[in-house]
């Protein structure tokens, strides 16, 4: 075989080998990219699941998808404040681990009742909680949902108290205040601590109404704004108008006794 023929064979071999090599290289890179993408998605999903322990799943989804609809906005929202009575003094007498276990179980029961009625808990402070209805999206039944959630919370507390009683532990008592109004919703905070929450006068009113439950000796109070939206199936008892901090006029509240529907 002469040199010229060898050269042509070499060129031919290269002409086949080089594209094959390039294709092999490209396929390898593509495979790597796919693997990298799959791994990134797996981590993102894990992060999302972890994050959902701290914020409503809908909000987490919006944040992870980079959608702009978590920007602060004014919205009609119904706020439900619930606070345990006498729990602080109970804490002083109980083992810390038992105290936390009781509190966690209590929150789990309450969270179930709230979630069942389209609400979500946005804050847990000590033994108190703030649940929002209609904060994530328009909810025309938000007042009704909040009251039904509160009635289910009442039932859930009775059931949980049975468990506590079986363990010779003191039963829990709570007070719930519900109010509705236009508030600002959004992700608020500073530095590394941010949360999705609400701010505005109606939030303060809801909190004060929860405070009134202690004063008026009932477990569940709603304001006139809530009462106006409820149908006759809800049995309400008007309470004497009461003064609350930050309001010039006394506010009218109603004790929710039951729902016959």
């Amino acid at each position, binding site marked *: 075989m002469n040199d010229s023929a060898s050269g042509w064979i070499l060129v031919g071999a290269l002409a086949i080998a080089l594209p094959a090599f390039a294709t092999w290289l490209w396929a390898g890179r*593509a495979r790597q990219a*796919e693997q990298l*993408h799959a791994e990134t*998605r797996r981590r*993102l*999903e894990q992060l*999302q699941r972890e994050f959902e322990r701290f914020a409503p799943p*809908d909000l987490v*989804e919006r944040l*992870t*998808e980079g959608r702009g*609809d978590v920007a602060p906005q004014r919205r009609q929202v119904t706020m439900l404040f619930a606070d345990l009575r006498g729990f602080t003094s109970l804490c002083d007498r109980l083992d810390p681990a038992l105290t936390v276990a009781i509190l966690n179980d209590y929150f789990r029961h309450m969270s179930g009742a709230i979630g069942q009625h389209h609400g979500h808990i946005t804050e847990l402070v000590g033994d108190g909680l703030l649940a929002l209805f209609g904060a994530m*999206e*328009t909810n*025309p*039944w938000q007042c*009704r949902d909040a009251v039904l959630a509160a009635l289910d919370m009442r039932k859930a507390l009775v059931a949980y108290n049975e468990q506590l009683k079986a363990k010779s532990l003191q039963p829990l008592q709570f007070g719930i205040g519900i109010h509705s109004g236009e508030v600002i919703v959004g992700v608020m905070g500073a530095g590394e601590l941010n949360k999705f929450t609400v701010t505005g006068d109606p939030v303060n009113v809801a909190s004060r109404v929860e405070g009134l439950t202690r004063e008026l000796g009932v477990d569940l109070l709603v304001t006139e704004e809530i009462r106006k*939206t409820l*149908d006759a*199936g809800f049995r309400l008892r008007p309470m004497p108008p009461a003064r609350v901090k930050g309001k010039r006029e006394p506010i009218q509240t109603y004790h929710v006794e039951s729902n016959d*529907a």
Partner: protein
Amino acid sequence: MAQLLDQIPWAEPLLAPDIDPAWEAELKRRGGNGSEVDRRVAPSPWIREACLGVNTGRACAISAHLFNVAALVTAQENACRYCYGASRSYMQMLGYSEAYIRRIEQDVHLAELNEKERAMVAFCRNLARSRPRPASAELDGLVHLGYTREAAREIALWIALGCFYNRITILIASPPEHGFEGWVSAKRLKFLLLAPLMRFQAARRRRGKRDPAATAAALGAGVYGPVLAPLAGLPGAAIMKAALDGAFASNVLSRATKALMFAIVARSLDCGTSEAEARRLLAADGFGDAEIEKSLASLESARVPAAEARLLPWVRDTVHFQTAQIQSRTREIAAALGNAAALEAIGVAALANATVRLAMLVE
């Protein structure tokens, strides 16, 4: 983040298959595939017709490719294990690569999807999800990107029909087509080689002509006419119209219950057009304005038969749901109402969700 196929929980079937030889023969004659869904919805004439229509329907303004992508994305977004699995396998059968399907599922904006396709995928997700609810501007966005107005409307129609079918299969918890999925998976190589032929056949099966009978006047004449009229000419419009006419003509559930179910879905999605149409139906049944308002506010009505009362709060939960929860709640409904009424309620809820999603786009 929309769930992937293996992440969707799925309950045991709610309804047993109803083998009706006459209907099976009819299905075969009309190109149906005698699926798990077809057999389970067979007792309801209008639901089985609508399901067959969705499975064999044709499109005149969009390609089979867009049609397949829209079906996949809508099923994934609705977390419908049945439809998602079937759509995925169908695309594999047509020779779509696993990587391409994954990119659509994972919403990865790679070069394989062009700008128009990406916009269409986003539109599918937004309309199926409706969180927040879309409006006519979203349709205009598709037109702006180069889709014809008719194509944009046809995409919306098929997403709405997809939402209908997805809800039927989710609420009856139809068992996935494991046989079909396994068969396609086992023959991947063969399908890759036959891809051009398969795609050609599939495209031919879905390609339709404008429907001269589906005029704006004809579509606009019946229930929810104002929502259907803009779909004039589209071959799929007849499926929607027949379903709406059939649902309201059926006497398994009271007319008041059905109209209230539509009104509740409309209010959930803040769709004034749909609510107005539901109010018109309720008014024709003797409801006064205050009574309608009271029923919508309380999710109950004295005119709704006692057995059907639980459908009003339930239908609200068919708008946005977690699959496991809504399947469990629907099981409670079926236990209380019996299978025939439960199937009818499932059909009405699915249809209300589809109709209101279409109606939002005319606002």
